[in-house]
């Protein structure tokens, strides 16, 4: 049995078109925006070309809507062939309950340990020394995207960091623009706050709070300053009445809004709209203050199925997702960074290159999903969306935030 598994894994690693073995796998994910759909089509194309059949199970409405459906299907005994999660703690309990396929043999056959960079990505897939997921990309949420057109209309230069952005906001408003575009979905407010934490309080504070989980720092003056800054920033977003992140991005693309704090996946939307980095829009990683990346991202998990053929196909798909060709094709469309350091993204545009540089420099921190449980993340999302979309007192929000973090200790 062991040798059989190894053999399939080896076969998968070279992606041999196994004619007559076409196996259908249903793959669920929440990639439904224009850029995302184009990227996921690359995965499907590669899988189909290798002789299997990708059955697309897209679930609209973002991860918050999609994950419950995925999880209840897995725990409800109706698992799909493969499913997206953000790597980190989202699928931890499913793995612990023995519901996920062990991919260690695929990983060993393909040397994932050596090629996946940064290694923390693979660590997030590892439970008790076994590997349970295939990372597909790195996303860093802390970027500021700016519309060159909006600033040209207002007759002011495009800011180069968050502080300049704040200073420029009144001029934008005077020109009839929304300074900051922010969608209504709760996670977007949480993301904006996370980015501002690094920009305003610095990387060290971020690490002390989120990695070392030092609650004194969390309750301290530096974080109070972040809440105050966010309270100022929310005024810039007061007129932004859209729901989805890509509708907010669209406000930036069309020049109705000055900027948006959003992950590097926003890149895909600019690309679909035919915009050129540097001339039509400007991107500032770490809000232009602290150039760093948090190594969050997407990974695929493979629920256990009682079917040897499907299991073999699952392993073929896992190996395929990490393979160099797919990594290049997928990440160029998605606007995200590849999970292996040994491939050449010559076709990458300015913004992706900035990301690649930071990745190479090793200025990396783990993402929120990697350090906090979904329960804490959800509580913070609830808090942040309330805070950003109302006139909630910063001090009260700060106190509640510390309580939320403590519930996850």
């Amino acid at each position, binding site marked *: 049995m062991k040798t059989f598994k190894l053999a399939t894994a080896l076969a998968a690693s070279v992606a041999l078109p196994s004619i007559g073995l076409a196996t259908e796998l*249903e793959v*669920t*994910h929440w*990639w*439904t*925006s*224009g850029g995302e*759909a184009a990227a*996921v*089509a690359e995965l*499907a194309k590669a899988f189909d070309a290798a002789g299997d059949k990708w*059955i*697309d*199970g*897209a*679930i*609209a*409405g973002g991860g918050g809507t999609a994950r419950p*459906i995925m999880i*209840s*299907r897995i*725990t*409800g*005994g*109706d698992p*799909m062939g493969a499913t997206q999660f953000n790597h980190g703690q989202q699928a931890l309990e499913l793995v612990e309950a023995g519901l996920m396929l062990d991919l260690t043999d695929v990983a060993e056959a393909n040397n994932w340990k050596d090629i996946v960079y940064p290694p923390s990505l693979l660590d997030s897939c590892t439970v008790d020394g076994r590997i349970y997921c295939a990372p597909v990309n790195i996303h860093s949420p802390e970027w500021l995207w700016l519309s060159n057109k909006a600033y040209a209309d207002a007759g002011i230069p495009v800011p180069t960091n968050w502080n300049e952005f704040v200073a420029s906001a009144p001029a934008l408003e005077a020109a009839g623009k929304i300074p900051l575009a922010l969608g209504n979905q709760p996670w977007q407010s949480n993301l904006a706050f996370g980015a501002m934490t690094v920009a305003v309080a610095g990387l060290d504070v971020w690490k002390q709070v989120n990695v070392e989980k030092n609650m004194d720092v969390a309750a301290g003056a530096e974080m109070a300053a972040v809440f105050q800054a966010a309270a100022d920033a929310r005024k810039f977003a007061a007129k932004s009445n859209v*729901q*989805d992140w*890509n*509708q907010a991005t*669209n406000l930036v693309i069309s020049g109705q809004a000055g900027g948006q704090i959003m992950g590097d996946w926003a890149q895909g*939307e600019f690309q*679909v*709209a035919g915009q050129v980095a540097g001339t039509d829009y400007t991107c500032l990683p770490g809000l232009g203050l602290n150039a760093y990346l948090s190594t969050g991202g997407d990974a695929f998990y493979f629920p256990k199925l009682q079917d040897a053929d499907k299991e073999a196909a699952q392993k073929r798909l896992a190996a395929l997702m990490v393979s160099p060709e797919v990594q290049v094709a997928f990440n160029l469309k998605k606007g995200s960074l590849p999970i292996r350091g040994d491939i050449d993204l010559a076709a990458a545009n300015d913004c992706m290159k900035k990301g690649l540089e930071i990745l190479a420099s090793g200025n990396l921190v783990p993402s929120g999903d990697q350090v906090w449980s979904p329960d804490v993340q959800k509580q913070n999302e609830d808090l942040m969306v309330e805070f950003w979309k109302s006139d909630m007192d910063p001090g009260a929000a700060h106190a509640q935030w510390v309580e939320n973090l403590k519930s996850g200790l």
Partner: protein
Amino acid sequence: MADTFASGAVEPRGPKPRRVFSGRNIMIYGTLIVVCLYYILPLWVMVMTSLKGMPEIRMGNIFSPPVEITFEPWVKAWAEACTGLNCDGLSRGFWNSVRILIPSVVLSIIVASVNGYALINWRFKGSDLFFTILIFGAFIPYQVMLYPIVILLREMGLYGTLWGLVLVHTIFGMPILTLLFRNYFASLPEELFKAARVDGAGFWGIYFRIMLPMSLPIFVVAIILQVTGIWNDFLFGVVYTKPDLYPMTVQLNNIVNSVQGVKEYNVNMAATLLTGAVPLIVYFISGKLFVRGIAAGAVKG
């Protein structure tokens, strides 16, 4: 009480109207017409928006009729709108809803009618107690039973399948339908049942030869009730099925809320109308029976 709704025979109770243009009439009709505008407005807006092109929507007024009528949004909503890589529009959701609807309606009505019949004519010790719990069950928030049912379906091996959802609809349709049938059967003359018993007819014999033929109207009411109720369900569709089995309401919400580029309001409205079409058609065809069906909810045990 249900009968009162349907029969136009019962006369209105108010005082007789006097002249056509009395102040009183102007007030009554004026109020009713204003109220009706509020009710018609959304339907009007839906239809108008769905027949316009996006440029016209951006320029114009949501209430005005289209300058240039286009059916493209309808085609797109039905056959081309995307969720992820699946760009087959609402048509898939429509057929899923049909496939969910038919067995759910048939099964729930069979179960409830037989059950109502047993509760009236073949009572046993404890049957009233179960019936009372059943009626109370209609008021329990679904959220309370959401997860236990996930477990139940998993144990039965039905989770994520069409039949799992059919079972859920049968369970949650049971209180109101049983009530409906039980009350209707109670209104039939008892002598019929007794005479059949004397003639030696058994449980099923009486059900098929006497109860069923006499109860066609109530079956129609039950069908209307279930068709609209099941078609409009969202929560169970989301929780107990998977994407390729999503009913139309869930897919509608997906299509409208998954934006690729610019929001296409005309397509969204066409999709919304298409989803509402089935219950609306049922409503307009059935007329008074529909009124009777929904009023069944108001009948007390």
